[in-house]
């Protein structure tokens, strides 16, 4: 149970920079998701922390020791892979005992630890089976048991749930969170699934082209995105661009929009992000921010209705509405949208 720090880590493959000056700290016992599209460098960062990749520059600290030059086998990490990566020629018990053996724990002591770990992932009594006799979800639980039985300093998860189907993935999320809380392991989780990142994490780090663009608790990252990329990648956003005018923003069509965000000086270009679920269709709304738009597409998804709209000057917008009264607006109708200045976030481009 230790914290993990990376300081000004950089990695380049040939002419392509994969990571640029990454500095962050993963606090003791916290669950942090590295979220980003493929090619954002999230997996590279995880593999640098694990020790599979050596950074060109920078330092990796696990606890108080600098492990930048320590090979993988000397770092005391627990790792889970997307492909489970169980040893197919060993039984479940042998798989779980592998790391213990490497630490000189054998015989009865090892057997006890293995039983305890298997019990933790609810697989008691499966010890004598071979990995191929287990389902995908069970195999991933064995991989988790194998990773935590060695009491690692840090638990590194490389998209471990992506190979599972939706229902199983949700079950495993709950399981993973329970075990992480019980064990108190500092956990770093790589995913491209934003919902997974929001549900599981104490902290979400959003990566874009080799940089961490924002790191914070899920609520802050979602409600107060710092950049257009963060607002777009985590959830959906509508973007309005205009110029600052007397503490508000004048859009190109002349509409004035108010925002609670700190705005730059008069005349500066600014981009505003508004979450589609923060906009409402109520005509007699008192909100100061209003736009009129024509509905182009209605997506009926049961509890939630999605409307794709277009303003008269051709700006595309999205709006999510709760299906509270069962009233569905039709395509082609022109409606008035309103939203609060609180939910109007100025983002960097």
């Amino acid at each position: 149970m230790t914290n993990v720090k990376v300081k000004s880590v950089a990695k380049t493959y040939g002419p392509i920079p994969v990571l640029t000056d990454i500095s962050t700290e993963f606090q003791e016992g916290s669950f942090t998701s590295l979220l980003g599209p493929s090619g954002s460098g999230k997996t590279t960062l995880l593999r640098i922390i694990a020790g599979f990749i050596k950074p060109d520059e920078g330092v990796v600290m696990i606890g108080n020791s600098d492990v930048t030059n320590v090979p993988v086998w000397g770092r005391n990490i627990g790792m889970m892979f997307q492909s489970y990566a169980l040893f197919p020629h060993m039984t479940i018990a042998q798989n779980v005992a592998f790391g213990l053996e490497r630490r000189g724990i054998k015989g009865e002591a090892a057997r006890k630890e293995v039983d305890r770990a298997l019990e933790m992932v609810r697989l008691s009594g499966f010890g004598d089976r071979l990995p191929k006799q287990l389902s995908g979800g069970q195999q991933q639980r064995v991989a988790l048991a194998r990773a935590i039985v060695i009491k690692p300093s840090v638990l590194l998860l490389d998209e471990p749930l992506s190979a599972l189907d939706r229902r199983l993935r949700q079950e495993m999320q709950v399981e993973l969170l329970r075990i992480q809380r019980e064990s108190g392991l500092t956990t770093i989780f790589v995913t491209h699934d934003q919902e997974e990142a929001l549900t599981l994490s104490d902290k979400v780090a959003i990566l874009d082209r080799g940089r961490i663009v924002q790191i914070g608790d899920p609520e802050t990252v979602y409600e107060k995105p710092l950049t257009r990329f963060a607002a777009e990648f985590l959830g959906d956003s509508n973007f309005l661009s205009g110029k600052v005018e007397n503490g508000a923003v004048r859009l190109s069509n002349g509409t004035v929009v108010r925002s609670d965000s700190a705005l730059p000086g008069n005349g500066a270009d600014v981009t505003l992000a508004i979450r589609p679920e923060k906009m409402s269709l109520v005509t007699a709304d008192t909100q100061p921010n209003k736009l009129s738009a024509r509905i182009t597409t209605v997506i009926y998804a049961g509890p939630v209705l999605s409307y794709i709209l277009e303003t008269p000057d051709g700006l595309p917008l999205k709006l999510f509405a709760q299906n509270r009264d069962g009233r569905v607006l039709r395509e082609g109708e022109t409606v008035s949208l309103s939203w609060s200045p609180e939910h109007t976030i100025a983002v960097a481009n």
Partner: protein
Amino acid sequence: MQNDQLALAQTRGSVDPRVKRPLPAWVSTTALLLPTYGWLTIAIFLPLLTMLAFSFMSATPMGKTPVEFTLKQYRAFIDQPYLLRIGFNSLMMGFWTTLFCAILGFLAAVALVRATVGKTRETLLVLILLPFWTNGLVRVFSWTMVLRENGFLDNILHMVVPDAGSISILYTRYAVVLGLVHGYLPYMILTCYIALVTIDDAIIEAAASLGARWWTILYKILIPMAAPGLISGAVLIFIPVIGSFMEPRILGGRVGVTMGTVIEDQFTQAFNWPLGASLSFTLLAVVLAIFATFSGVLRGRTAG
């Protein structure tokens, strides 16, 4: 409902003459297998049967001596005890050749799997297959150039250390094993490569993350997982090696008397085909016995 449709389809099938009924599965299977098995019967099975018949004859059925049925050819090992020593030497030759091939071939296969930069893997594969493309006789004779006294190896040694003696190992068992390893190594490399290339990188990474160093990964992960490749490579090498006669003759000289050369002599020099045949079958029986024992051991290991 479904049954009705099926029945309908069937009646339609019998009414409509254009719809052909599919052939039963066994007909197509037989038709597909016939060329292979037919060829095997003519080319392998019949000659082998003829050999088996020869091995029970008292003399080659082409001379003037009358031919009788006899079991005496199979008593050769008892009647001529020097054959036992030759047989043992052949088995040892097979053992050492297979062992060296296994060690070198496995490591080469690991290197091959890890060679992912650019075209290194393709280049290495071609280099490995080169011995296959050269004529075996040329290959073995070129080894004599290297190994003989004042040969290539000696010359290089004397360039570095002028006073050193000769390290000629030509006409020793070492030379024979060396030549055999060279010739048969590609089999082992390829079978191990096929086994190793299927191992997911994440499995090796998982082992490393759990604290395993390279030798632990080698003994605990790579070798057990590539065991099928090692075994099939060993089978592919051991059988032809203990019957080999070209390499022992050329590189072994006086010490290169093996079961292979003895059998060859019976056919080409002594014109004693029945003895040659019986020795061949005895060798076959020994090889089968060895593999039967080993397969039992291996099966026991995987089960336990």
